């Protein structure tokens, strides 16, 4: 979903201004929750599908975006099917799929830098006391850190499995936090070293 999945292209979807894509995404996501039901999910699904086709993205891109959430979606479907019925379970799951694909369409066709510039552009109308550049830096760093944290989490997990320990959450979180804090300090020093002041 967030690992740098940018797929280069020159379609109208790629060229659209990031602010517009974000607004479209907000409209789709909000609409899916306000108008609950199959019609809205199907409409949004067709729109997102058209977006994928227009951007020249292949089904494997869509599958790659869904894969991280796949088994969670299966679990949600199973639980909802037990508690309610298969149709409602299908609706809830289909809504997640459409939401994730809609967000993926924006991520796949927008460079992180463009994305942040888009938010910055929106911020130019904000009052001067708002620390615009710090907000932009925080956003772009966070988008970089999410795949990093996932990787570290997976490494710590595998290291513990290799030693045959049954990882408790504490044993997982302490190395995760300490390792990423160290990385954070290195990143801060790197930014500081490169800054003109």
């Amino acid at each position, binding site marked *: *979903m*967030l690992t740098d999945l940018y797929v280069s292209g020159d379609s109208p979807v790629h060229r659209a201004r990031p602010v517009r894509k*974000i607004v479209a*995404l*907000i409209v*789709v*996501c*909000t609409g*899916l*929750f*306000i108008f609950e039901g199959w019609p809205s999910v199907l409409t949004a699904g067709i729109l997102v599908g058209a977006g994928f086709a227009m951007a020249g993205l292949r089904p494997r891109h869509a599958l790659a975006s869904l894969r*991280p*959430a796949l*088994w*969670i*979606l299966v*679990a*949600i479907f199973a*639980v909802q099917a037990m*508690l309610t019925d298969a149709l409602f379970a299908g609706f809830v799951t289909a809504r*997640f799929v459409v*939401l*994730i694909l*809609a*967000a993926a369409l*924006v*991520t796949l066709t927008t460079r992180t830098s463009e994305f942040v510039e888009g*938010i910055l552009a929106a911020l130019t109308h904000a009052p001067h006391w708002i*620390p615009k550049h*710090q907000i932009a*830096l*925080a*956003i772009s*760093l*966070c*988008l970089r*850190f*999410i795949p*990093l*944290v*996932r990787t570290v*989490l997976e490494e710590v997990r595998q290291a513990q499995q290799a030693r045959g320990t049954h990882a*408790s*959450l*504490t044993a997982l*979180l*302490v190395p*995760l*936090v*300490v390792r*990423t*804090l*160290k*990385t*954070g*300090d290195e*990143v*801060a020093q790197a*930014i*500081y070293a490169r800054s003109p002041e």
Partner: protein
Amino acid sequence: METRDIVFIALFAAITAALAVFPPVTLPVIGVPITAQSLGVMLAGGVLGAMRGGLAIVLLLGLLAIGLPLLAGGRGGFGVFLGPTGGYLIGWAVAAFVIGFLTERFWSRLTYPGAFVICVAGGVVVLYAIGIPWSAFVAKVSLGTALAGSLPFIPGDIVKALIAAGVIVIVKRSYPIIAK
């Protein structure tokens, strides 16, 4: 606010987002999912302190609002704030701030039991004080009903406070951020 603070804010927003990989358990009655993500909220406050911890969660909420699916189960988008559990998301930011504030207050004599009490105060008392009235309002039920519906989640949150307190105390010893 220095670059280092911005980096740590972004980092804990990312850690809280990444904790979504642990599968959520959704209870049928009111549909509030139990996730490992509120652990990230407690850690943000307990490791970074009030301002940075609170802003880390505000950043996460901002990214959610612009449509990134960062909540457990791939949830995200502006819609998550409109549902019955939207108050708990706003409450996360306040909870991280309160946990951070109390952790800073008691930093020099922070022990495991103390950190646990702080995590419960912010991550349970403050969080539910915001989440329950919100749920009652949007779902059009009485405060009592909303409270009763939230009770099943409290044991899970106590367990998360136990885990978070342990992590906060160990990180304080090995890589303290607040004291610097």
